[in-house]
Structures are given as structure tokens and as C-alpha cells.
């Protein structure tokens, strides 16, 4: 592909940095800030571009693994219904990774509420411990991914 995405992003970054930014008047403080932030975003996007598909696939795989780990939660009708919906969300296939991920996360949220309403006592503890373990691992990956934005003290 000519031009490739990396070349296109590089040219936009250069235009913003070396052509647009120096010509903004000193009093245009908001415009200056916005250009600097835009350049920062684009630089990070450029650096992460090749890793992005793999990152999103792993994110979905982690959500599926958590959904499967919660399969043994038991309780009353609300918990059973939420469990069935979660199983279906985990099994769903397709190319839209973000939509699949969203569906699994929403199903887990419904399960959390259902277990809170009529789940077994043992299931409540298990649900909490399982989510904490998986989400800690997931959030560590997310923090690494977003570390270039400069907020994190990792």
C-alpha cells in the first residue's frame, strides 16, 4: 500500500508541528494546546499501529477467559438467566472485536447484579475474587498500553 498508514501519519505530524504550530499567534493558546495534544495522539497512534490488532484480540480473549471462569456462579432465576446470557456472549464469533468485547462485558455486569440479587453466598465470593484477579491482570496491560500518554507512574 503506497502511501502506507505510517507514512501518512508521519506527514500529518510534520505538517502540524513544523507548519501549523509555528504560525499560530501567541494569544491562540487553546489552538496551540490542541495542536500539541493532536500531535501527541498521532505520535502514539503511529507507534502502536502495528500492535493494535493484536492488542484488541488479546483484550477479547481475556474477556472470554473471564466469562468462562465465571461459568460456575450459581443461584436463583436471575443468576441463572444472566449465566445463560454470558455463556452466549462468550461463544459469539465475528470480526467486530469491540462489539464482541462490549457484549461480554455487559453480560458480566448483568451477572454481577444478578449474583448480588439472588446468587449463592459462595458464588458472591467467587465472583468477586475471579473478577479482581482477571481485571488486575487486564488493567496492568491497559496501563502499559496507555503509559506513553504520560499520566501513569508505572
Amino acid at each position, binding site marked *: 500500500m503506497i502511501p502506507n498508514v505510517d507514512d501518512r501519519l508521519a506527514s500529518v505530524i510534520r505538517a502540524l508541528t513544523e507548519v501549523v504550530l509555528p504560525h499560530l499567534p501567541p*494569544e491562540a*493558546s487553546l489552538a496551540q494546546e490542541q495542536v500539541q*495534544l493532536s500531535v501527541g495522539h498521532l505520535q502514539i497512534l503511529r507507534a502502536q499501529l502495528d500492535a493494535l490488532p493484536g492488542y484488541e484480540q488479546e483484550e477479547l480473549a481475556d474477556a472470554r477467559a473471564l466469562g468462562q471462569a465465571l461459568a460456575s456462579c450459581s443461584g436463583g432465576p436471575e443468576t441463572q438467566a444472566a449465566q445463560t446470557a454470558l455463556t452466549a456472549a462468550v461463544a459469539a464469533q465475528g470480526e467486530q472485536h469491540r462489539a464482541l468485547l462490549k457484549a461480554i*462485558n455487559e453480560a458480566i*455486569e448483568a451477572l454481577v*447484579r444478578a449474583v448480588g440479587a439472588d446468587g449463592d453466598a459462595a458464588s458472591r465470593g467467587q465472583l468477586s475474587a475471579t*473478577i479482581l484477579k482477571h481485571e488486575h491482570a487486564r488493567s496492568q496491560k*491497559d496501563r502499559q498500553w496507555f503509559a506513553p500518554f504520560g*499520566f501513569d*507512574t508505572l
Partner: protein
Amino acid sequence: MNAPASREETHDMEAVHAKLLEKRRVSRTLPPYRAALNSEVVETLNRFFASEVPGSSVSDVRRVGGGASKEQFFFSLTAPGGDAERYILRMDPRAAITQTDRRREFEALKAFQGIVPAPEPIWLDAEGEHFGEPAVIMRTVNGVTKPSDAGLKVSGLGTSLGTDLRAKLRDQFIDNLIAVHALDWRTAHLPSFDVADGDPKQAARWSFNYWRDLWRADEGETRPIFALAEQWLADNLPDTAELVFTHGDYRTGNYLFDEASGRVTAILDWEMARIGDYHEDLGWVLMQIFGTFENGRFRASDLFEREEFITEYERRTGRSVNRRTLHYYDVMSSWKTYIIVAANGMAAARAQHNHQDVLLTFLATTGAMFADDLCRLLGQEVPS
């Protein structure tokens, strides 16, 4: 664990918050917002002051840099026969990263004149009749929110004050917070503030309900730890032993100081103030994102280590800090900040209802830190 909330309790919140939520929902379908141009602000200010201060003139209008929430402009106003005085105009964009009420901010600032350093509010356009969106005008105060050598970081996020300033600011920081909590809100003029005295859990419930509904109004994209935290917060609402006036966003970055003397000149950003539980402010102060780490040791707002801050607060106020209640508000603080960056900020950006969408998406990258904070906090043994 508490009994499940009744239907009435699920919708129980301050009147102003219910109104803000309705506005948030209704405004979602409005067209994109764009940043105000200087020339437009000049024109609006001239029109406003033609009726408020006839014969006056507006000059030197300049946008204020930094900040993630409001559109702000410095300007000078010269009344007939008077000298030019400097003011700051603080306007809502169509949707902000925090949905708050300018009237409440105005009342809070008025109430604290002469009690703690705070900008003096002069004019209020509560409904946006003159400025298009709600706005407040206050006198300017000199000072900085971070040392001049602190770099380009967003004020208050990991700001390092350095040894000298830290020594000068520590006592002022905690004493000003204590003074805020000491306000006699029963006699102060605070008509927009409701008092959560219906039952002992109402103060916590009001806060929880508002933020939960804000999340839903903005269709926040959930993740499992957020769902778990919401359930935990609903199940563990604490009693409030003493209702105090809380600032709501008290931290380094939200006060001005004179860099040479280290004197605090103004406490800023009162928009999340409410009458509630002082543990809510303490939990916010102690959030890791607003502090620094040095050799693995955490300093809240780069001023106090955690236990040091708690024991100093207890010593100076005579209050006791209930560790179980503080833990609740530790969790709520991380949950709220997740809502702010991942739902409120992103909803404003997606709807193109803000003047700096690109900053909002930048800030949303901190969501992973708050998710991790929630894992850490909910994994801790709850203090007895």
C-alpha cells in the same frame, strides 16, 4: 452488607443533581459545540455589561490556558470614572467532563469569602441567558497551580512541589480543608444545597445515585471491575456521623499559590461541593493520581503521606476518621474518577459538545489507572 435499596432510595438525590442529569440527557441530541472565539466573547461581554454596568468598557480579553472542564477568559472591566479591574469569565461548554451547576459554585464561593482564600464571585448567569450556557464571573487572583518548572503536566496530576514549597504549603493545605469542613452550613446562605438528613445513609446514597445515573446517562462502556465496584458501593453505603460542607475536588492543582512566598492565594474549583461526609473529601485527597511517589512512598497531593494526613486531620479537628468509612470513599473516589474520564469526558467528546475533545480523549487514557485502583482497593480487607 446493607439491605437492598428500595425504589425510592434508588432515585434519591439532590434536586440540583436530578436537574443536571435531565439536562445532560436532553442535550445529547443537540448539534456540535465549538470553542468560543475571542471576538464573540468580547461581543457577549460588552452586551452583558451594557446593562449590568452602563458606561463601562471591556478590554484585554484573553483565553485562560489549561483546565479540562470550562471555557475561561480573563478580561478587564473599566467602570465609568474607575480603574480597570481584572475578572475571569467561567462558562460551561455544552457538555463537560464534570456536569456541575454554576449557581452552586457561586453560592459556595460567596459563603467562603473571608473564611478561606477563594475568588470573589461577582456576576452569575445561572441559566445561560446572556452567555448561551451557564456562566460565572469572578475577580481574578494571582498565583500558580504548580511550580513553574513542573513541565507540561496537567495541574495536580503527579505534580511535584519540591521540598521548599512542600514545607510552606502543607499546613495551609490541611488547615484550609479543615476550615471548609468547619463552615456553619446551617446559617450560611446556600439555597441550592440540599441537606442529606433524612437518614444516616442518605449522604452517601445521594452521591452514589448521582454518579451512577451520570454513568448511565452517558452510556459508559462498562468493564467487570467497574460493575463489581458499583455493586459493592450500593451494598455498603456507610452512615454519616456528621454532615459538613465538602469541597468535592480538593487537591494540589485546585489551589493557587504565590511561588515566591508559598502562600495559598485561592482555593479553586468548588463545583463539586456539597453538604456531605468529610470522609468523602479525605478519600479524594488521598487518591494516588493526585499525589506523587518517591522511592515507593506515596504522598497525597505531594504534601502528606497517607497515615500522616489522616492523623493530622484527626489531631487538628478532634474528629475521628472511621477507617471503614474512609475505605468506602476511597473506592467511591476511584469509581467517580473512572466515570469522569471514561464516561463523562468521552460522551462529551463523542457528541462533539466540548471545546477540547482531543484533551478529553487524552484524559480518558487514565481510566486504566482507576480500574487498577479499584482492583487494589476492593482486594483489600475492609477495615473493621
